[in-house]
């Protein structure tokens, strides 16, 4: 009995592994295929299995993962802000946010192609135009989604907008699949090159220009965004709505407009993330929003949902966890690792790292 059990357990484990492999390879193909980190990590896995890592090399290897993780984390952080802000203001998880990010990526790639067709070859200009176009059009999507799917449900029961969000997410996915096709969309690298250092020992640490741009742009956006929330009248109105929506209306805040603008801002940041992913990985498809969305959501929960610095920190941590997990354990299970973090956070610290339970003297 016991022995048989053991044998079947072994078989079961194999089966599970195979299933997960299939699932991750096929279902999440878009994300899996999205080259850079995965490629490096795959290479990393091969290495670790061969145990060729010496002392100095191990350090270099670690450094490379750090670079990859921070880059990935910047992207997750930008998406996570959209989740956390919307949750903060209307207490709803906008499950369609991942799709908004995906649309941002598509708008970027389309704009790149259009610019190529009309012969704009000066790269900094092209990047600026793509950035603006992605932000503007994606913002329009974010605004429309809120107006169509959530606005009419305000004041309804709590679950209603959530269900509507899932519907919106499915709709947007299928809409893009229909309009753009299901195939992976490749893009030629626009920004190439980078720095290489620590070349000794057979392992080179690479810091590409695109990685630098991603981290710098994200940092700038996050600083600007924090200032906007802390210092401007719009930011104050958003915080007021977050704390007491009825009272915000009583001092003359147009609550519906403020909520719409929150969606617009979240969509703009997601658009930037979409553009950066397009540049970084060079391939996108209609399904990338799902996985990136859930991971950014995990980042928001880990940081403390509703907390802006929490979303940034959570994004960074999830990026690092994913990179290091892929590098030192298993690429196949990198998504599983991230979702385990989500589950653990929800069980042991539902308020997240920087979230505060609402205790106020009233």
């Amino acid at each position, binding site marked *: 009995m016991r022995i048989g059990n053991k044998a079947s357990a072994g078989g079961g484990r194999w089966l599970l592994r195979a299933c997960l492999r299939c699932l991750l390879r096929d279902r999440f193909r878009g994300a899996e295929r999205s080259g850079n980190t995965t490629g490096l990590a795959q290479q990393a896995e091969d290495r670790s299995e061969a145990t060729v890592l010496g002392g100095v090399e191990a350090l270099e290897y670690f450094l490379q993962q750090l670079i990859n993780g921070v880059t990935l984390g910047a992207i997750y952080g930008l998406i996570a802000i959209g989740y956390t802000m919307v949750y903060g203001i209307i207490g709803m998880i906008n499950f369609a946010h991942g799709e908004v990010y995906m649309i941002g990526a598509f708008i970027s790639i389309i704009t790149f192609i259009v610019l190529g067709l009309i012969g704009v070859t000066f790269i900094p200009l092209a990047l600026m135009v793509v950035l603006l176009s992605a932000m503007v059009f994606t913002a329009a999507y974010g605004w429309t989604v809120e107006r169509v799917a959530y606005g009419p449900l305000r004041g309804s029961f709590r679950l209603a907008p959530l269900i509507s969000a899932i519907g919106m997410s499915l709709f947007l996915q299928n809409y893009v699949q229909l309009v753009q096709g299901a195939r992976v969309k490749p893009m030629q690298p626009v920004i190439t090159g980078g720095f290489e250092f620590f070349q000794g020992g057979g392992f080179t640490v690479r810091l590409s220009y695109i990685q630098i741009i991603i981290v710098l742009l994200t940092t700038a956006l996050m600083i600007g965004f924090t200032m906007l929330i802390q210092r401007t*009248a719009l930011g*104050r*109105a958003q*915080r*007021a709505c977050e*704390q*007491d929506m*009825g*009272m*915000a*209306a*009583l*001092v*003359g*805040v*147009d*609550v519906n407009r403020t909520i719409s603008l929150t969606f617009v801002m979240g969509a703009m940041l997601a658009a930037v993330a979409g553009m950066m992913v397009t540049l970084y990985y060079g391939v996108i498809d209609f399904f990338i929003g799902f996985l990136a969305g859930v991971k950014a959501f995990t980042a928001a929960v880990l940081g403390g949902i509703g907390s802006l610095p929490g979303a940034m920190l959570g994004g960074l941590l999830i990026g690092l966890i994913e990179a290091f997990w892929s590098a030192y354990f298993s690429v196949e299970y990198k998504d599983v690792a991230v979702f385990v973090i989500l589950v653990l956070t929800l069980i042991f610290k539902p308020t997240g790292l920087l979230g505060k339970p609402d205790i*106020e*003297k*009233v």
Partner: protein
Amino acid sequence: MLTIRGVSTSYGHIQALHGVDIEVRKGEIVTLIGANGAGKTTLLMTICGNPRATGGRILFEDRDISQAPTFEIVRMGIAQAPEGRRIFPRMTVLENLQMGATVADPAHFDEDCTRVFKLFPILDERKAQRAGTLSGGEQQMLSIGRALMSRPRLLLLDEPSLGLAPMIVKQIFSVIRDINEREGMTVFLVEQNAFHALKLAHRGYVLANGRVVLQGTGAELLANREVRAAYLEGGH
């Protein structure tokens, strides 16, 4: 200035107000007293459009505001210090005042701030502090101060004395008298503390079970036997 004509309000199937008629004239302090659950707070909130009146009309300076959205009503010149104060707890005192000035011209923000700090000097000392950490009395002052920041022509106050020490109540009521006498501010005051409210007010209404059952000048109501029996005896 404010005319409430036959206003009814319901929460779902429960009707809270049954055809209430109230008139507030320019420069007056009018008080509305009544027991718990009489519908006083509901009436103030209905004036601000949340919940909406299900019947009757609310006129502010001869404009029907009963269908206007809340923020429009505030823009027209009505400000409220609502029940439970409802200051924004995770904002500083100054930010709360900035929120109060949402519909005001930013050009006279400093001037309005000075005016509020003059009325409530403690707020000046605490202006960088998070509002959630203020004491109950300070929060009430902030709530009134915030309402004044929009330069309203009509000020709605919902139980400003609730849960406060007698000294603080005295201070708050003297400020209400002050802004009425010196600046001619029209005040509509909802109170359970009937004695103080009637002494302060020019006129008063008594609300019971969603209906106006008595009205008169402050002095008349103070002398009224039913009012004394129901709201004053054994209390204050």
